[in-house]
């Protein structure tokens, strides 16, 4: 793909925003992004705005009626928990095609109005005869098989929570800003065996927005102070992994394929060597370990080694989730993937105060949705 520049980022604080509507969140993120890009709303030619739950909003109107941005093309994107980054994919390809000069890709989710424990149920999407499983349960099934197959333990998973909360404690916009200990993680109430409360990302509210343009325009506007999206890979697999006999539950094929696609687009052969850090979809601790493998940072079964040896700590050989990840931010569905790209941008521009990865020039972000059925991988580097 032709490179696309990120010239502005806006991210609200993530958390339980009982006093705020999706409107407040989206306005905050959008205006922070255009201010960061030093443009005005009227300069924007098209918008992609993600929402997962219809209760947050549907159609282009979710953006138009929030910021009163009328008369221009706006698409609502929905693609499970990968909604945010798929949104960026659509916006970036529209810019790369030359159709628009300046666009916004935003995502917002207002989950705290649903009054549910865990994510609100989605009605009628699974077959009638099938038992309903919560999101943590879907990933817990991967954990139990990994325990059986590779001897991973709850302690290994706990290390992921400890690492990500260590980073998140230093991020001003994170939902949770406290460190946790392995002991606390292990003693927390069970959500879906073997995942306890601290193995799960929280249900949070939040919004994020980025301003995209072509690199040549970016150069005129902000000099060298911009990042470029070098690649975005995406793959969709079955939403019924439990009905596919070949499914191992030890790897998420959507991630494997999206990563290969992105690495190929960006000309990367060895991501561990050629990239400096990554942001992965740590919706659950076990997901992060499997992501290490699927993103080709190590061989199958070795994910736990990376966390045990501190490879993915912020000062490690290949930091993962230096921002604190979904573990610290929570997961307002459609906002997460957009926020990940905003975090990548900050890192490669050296603006990640207090959480800066040393010599971060290029990294990846990975957004995973559904029962591991939708994955997007973006590669962002300094201009």
């Amino acid at each position, binding site marked *: 793909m032709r490179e696309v520049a990120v010239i502005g980022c806006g991210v609200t604080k993530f958390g339980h925003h009982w006093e705020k509507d999706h409107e407040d969140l989206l306005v905050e993120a959008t205006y922070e992004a255009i201010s960061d890009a030093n443009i005005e709303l009227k300069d924007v030619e098209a918008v992609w705005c993600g929402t997962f739950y219809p209760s947050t909003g549907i159609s282009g109107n979710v953006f138009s009626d929030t910021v009163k941005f009328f008369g221009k093309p706006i698409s609502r994107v929905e693609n499970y928990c990968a909604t945010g980054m798929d949104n960026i994919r659509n916006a970036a390809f529209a810019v790369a095609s030359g159709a628009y000069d300046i666009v916004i890709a935003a995502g917002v989710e207002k989950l705290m109005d649903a009054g*549910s*424990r*865990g994510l609100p*149920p989605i*009605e*009628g999407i699974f*077959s*009638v*005869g*099938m*038992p*309903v*499983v*919560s999101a*943590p*349960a879907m990933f*817990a*099934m*991967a*954990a*139990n*098989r990994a325990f*059986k197959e590779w001897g991973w333990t709850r302690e290994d998973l706990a290390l992921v929570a400890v690492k990500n909360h260590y980073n998140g404690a230093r991020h001003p916009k994170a939902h949770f800003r406290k460190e946790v200990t392995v002991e606390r993680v292990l003693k927390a*109430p*069970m*959500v*879906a*065996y073997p995942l306890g409360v601290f193995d799960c990302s929280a249900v949070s509210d939040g919004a994020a927005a980025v301003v995209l343009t072509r690199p040549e325009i970016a150069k005129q506007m902000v000099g060298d102070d911009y990042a470029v999206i070098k690649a975005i890979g995406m793959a969709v697999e*079955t939403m*019924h992994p*439990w*009905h*596919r*006999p*070949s*499914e191992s*539950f030890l790897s998420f094929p959507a991630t494997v394929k999206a990563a290969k696609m992105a690495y190929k687009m960006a000309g990367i052969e060895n991501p561990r060597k050629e990239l400096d850090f990554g942001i992965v979809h740590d919706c659950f601790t076990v997901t992060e370990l499997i992501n290490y493998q699927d993103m080709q940072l190590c061989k199958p079964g070795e994910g736990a080694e990376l966390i045990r040896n501190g490879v993915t700590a912020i000062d490690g050989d290949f930091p993962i989730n230096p921002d604190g990840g979904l573990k610290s931010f929570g997961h307002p569905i459609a906002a997460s993937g957009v926020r990940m790209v905003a975090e990548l941008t900050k890192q490669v521009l050296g603006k990640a105060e207090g959480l800066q990865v040393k010599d971060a020039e290029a990294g990846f972000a990975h957004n995973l949705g559904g029962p591991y059925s939708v994955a997007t991988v973006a590669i962002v580097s300094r201009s």
Partner: protein
Amino acid sequence: MASIGSCSVYLPVWKLSRDEISKETGMPSLGGEKAVAHWDEDSVTMAVEAARNLEGKFDAVIFASTSPPFRIKQCASFIASALDLPENIFTMDITDSMRAATDALITANEFVDSGRFSRVLVVAADRIPTKPGTLYEQLYGDAAAAIVVEKEGGAKILGYSTSTKPLPGSWMLAGDDTVRDYDMRVDARYGYASSVQQAAMPLFAKLGLSPADIDRIVASAPDPRSYEGLLKAVGARPEEFYFSSVGIAGSAHPLLLLATQLEKTGRILLGGYGEGADVLAIEIDEAMESNIGRMLESRKEISYGDYLYNRGFVGIRDAPDRPSLTKFWRDEKSIIRFYGMRCQNCGTVSYPISRCCIECGAKDNYEEVRLGERGKIYTFTVDYLVMPGNYTGDGVHPHCVAVVDLDGGGRVMFEVTDTLREFNGIECDAEVERTFRLLFEKNNFRYYGWKARLPR
């Protein structure tokens, strides 16, 4: 006259001690245990479980119960579907009477004797709703029994006769939640023994038999003492009545007693009581295997609190909206008959039936295959955000689900049932078997389907 070919009994996994009931309610204990259905079991699911053990084809199914889950809607057709019987068979329900099962047996006998049908499945099941703290709570137990009636079989029906006598026994009005009674003593003193004897007398005359020609007498009764009293009155030894282990299984009780009697040869009298009596004389030439022993042995104790949960008296069950009933009907072959597909292109067996193969994508190139009864857990979890039955989680009753590789192919995610808070034995590679259950109740309808349980 027709014969009985085989039999099968189903007891739910739970047994509740009557002393435990007494401790919690203050009612005097009647001793022993009663069979208690899991929350997802009713007369339809227990009937399917009993009938599933029987082999061969049927051309008629008669379902007998006093607790059918529907006021209007045939249960037998539903049971036939779960048993994957052909759509051209005859199905009927006999309900609302404690004599329903013996009525069904008599009807099946006539069907076969007349040559109209060759092999009739008679299946009776009851889960009589009782109010906590009543005598009925201790009297009734939940169970099902199935009998095959056919031309040639190991036990010959010699004849039958009946009596009728409307008495104020137990009853339920159409809108009642639990069973009622006026005074049980009336039924016990004036109804039971005289009705059974009144029915038996002409049968003896018709068959040219005397009571001395009968080896054993079993009959359902409003209470165990009435049965003992009857046997004493006729000078015979009471048989095992299963009150101390099961309780009175409502209309299913006569078939439960019959199934256990079939384990030994001899000439027996079988009575079914309820506003009169049915009495059948049966000559058992070949002893048949009954699974009652295995059913009794493979049970677990339940606390009174968990029993109240199973009965729906404790906790909130709030199911999210589910797909429409037309979808449930369209997918019947997968959901109820439990068919998957074998791809003709890559050979993969998968579930449910769908147009394109989940592995190779080949379009409309498959054969429908009924999936296996048992399988191995590939992976599993215990989900505290969801309650069994897809209800919103209460954090106390977790939802155990397992991804199971079925024998013969096909991978299916099942709810693991017959467990409330203990999940010992549920692990990767553990063996499980299918069981027919209520999936959930929503849209004022009951959705049934298959779950998994540890083998019994």
